[in-house]
């Protein structure tokens, strides 16, 4: 079998076999093949070789997949999957529930540590920045008059922003001295009255 002298076309034959050429090169090869018995034969050899090389044992995809490592679940918002009813508590939303639960425990601990009640400013001086804690039956907590959380059923519905706000609130509460008898005013929410200055002399 004599090789064709047109090296360029011969180099293109494997790509022609895989239908991977652009229209120009594909037309060039097709035209060349009409008049070149050596290249037609070479293409037949390549086709047969490809067929032989394709005959391999099949692999068990399911078995391979089962052997793969667990995915490192990303915290990137763009990659987070939609929580579904099928996923339930074990899915991506679980971390939110856990974070919210910790938040509740932390907030309750602060309250208990302060004697079971919130030292709040009077309604006259500070109507908005109040923090209330209902009993277990009510199980409802209100912070800053903004975020109202149903304790059990909707924890997984918390947004990132809400969790961030709650964490900030807890950190602020924990930073206050436990034995401080003075009314608590949340920083930045209300301008303290001069007569009731928090942390004054």
């Amino acid at each position, binding site marked *: 079998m004599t090789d064709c002298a047109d090296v360029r076309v011969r180099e293109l034959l494997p790509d022609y076999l895989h239908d991977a050429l652009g229209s120009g090169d594909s037309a060039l090869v097709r035209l060349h093949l009409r008049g070149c018995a050596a290249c037609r034969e070479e293409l037949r050899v390549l086709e047969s070789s490809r067929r032989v*090389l394709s005959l391999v044992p099949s692999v068990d995809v399911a078995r391979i997949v089962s052997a793969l490592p667990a995915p490192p679940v990303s915290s990137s918002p763009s990659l987070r*999957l939609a929580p579904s009813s099928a996923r339930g508590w074990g899915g991506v939303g679980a971390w939110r529930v856990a974070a919210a639960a910790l938040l509740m425990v932390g907030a309750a601990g602060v309250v208990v540590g302060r004697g079971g009640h919130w030292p709040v400013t009077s309604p006259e001086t500070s109507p908005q920045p109040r923090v209330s804690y209902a009993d277990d039956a009510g199980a409802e907590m209100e912070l800053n008059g903004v975020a109202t959380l149903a304790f059990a059923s909707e924890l997984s519905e918390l947004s990132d922003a809400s969790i961030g706000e709650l964490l900030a609130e807890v950190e602020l509460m924990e930073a206050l001295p436990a034995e401080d008898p003075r009314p608590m005013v949340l920083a930045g929410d209300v301008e303290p009255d001069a007569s009731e200055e928090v942390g004054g002399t």
Partner: protein
Amino acid sequence: MGLRLMSDVVAPLEEANDDALIARWKAGDQRAATLLVERHSPALARFAVSLGSLENVEELVQDTLVRAFESFDGFRSDSSLRTWLFTILRRLAIDRGRTESRRREVGPPEPGQLVTTHGALDQILADETQLRIKWVMTSLTRMQREVFGLRVSEGMSYREIADVLGTTEGAARVHYHNALRAVKEELDD
């Protein structure tokens, strides 16, 4: 409060490219892993055979994919995933000495032994031309067999082949033509 991936909106998962599937798997979507395995395991199996790993193809393919999934962070998406997977598979095969052991075990079979030597696969190879090609493949050097397989079976460019095999485009081209000449000479006899 359903958060959805952009790729859910743009295209079905089956049509997602490799990078998108890797991202989905990292986010916890096991279907993406299945699709990646389905997409690449046949080519990996073909390459494993060309390396001489006929009897342990599935094991080698599985080990390659496990290694890849463990180290996707090291995958640079400027090269194709398939090229990267081939590189891993080849390294594993060489580390285990499978190529050399196969060459020692198989040896040059007699024409009448071809069917029994390679078992069920050769029952499909009724055509004498294909039997001869299969035979001549065993006589090629490892590099010739790898280059020829990647070029003819996978349609890879010389650049991609050079990346997988750690050689140059020019050397890959020479190995391809030497392998092709050997095949043609076998068929001319």
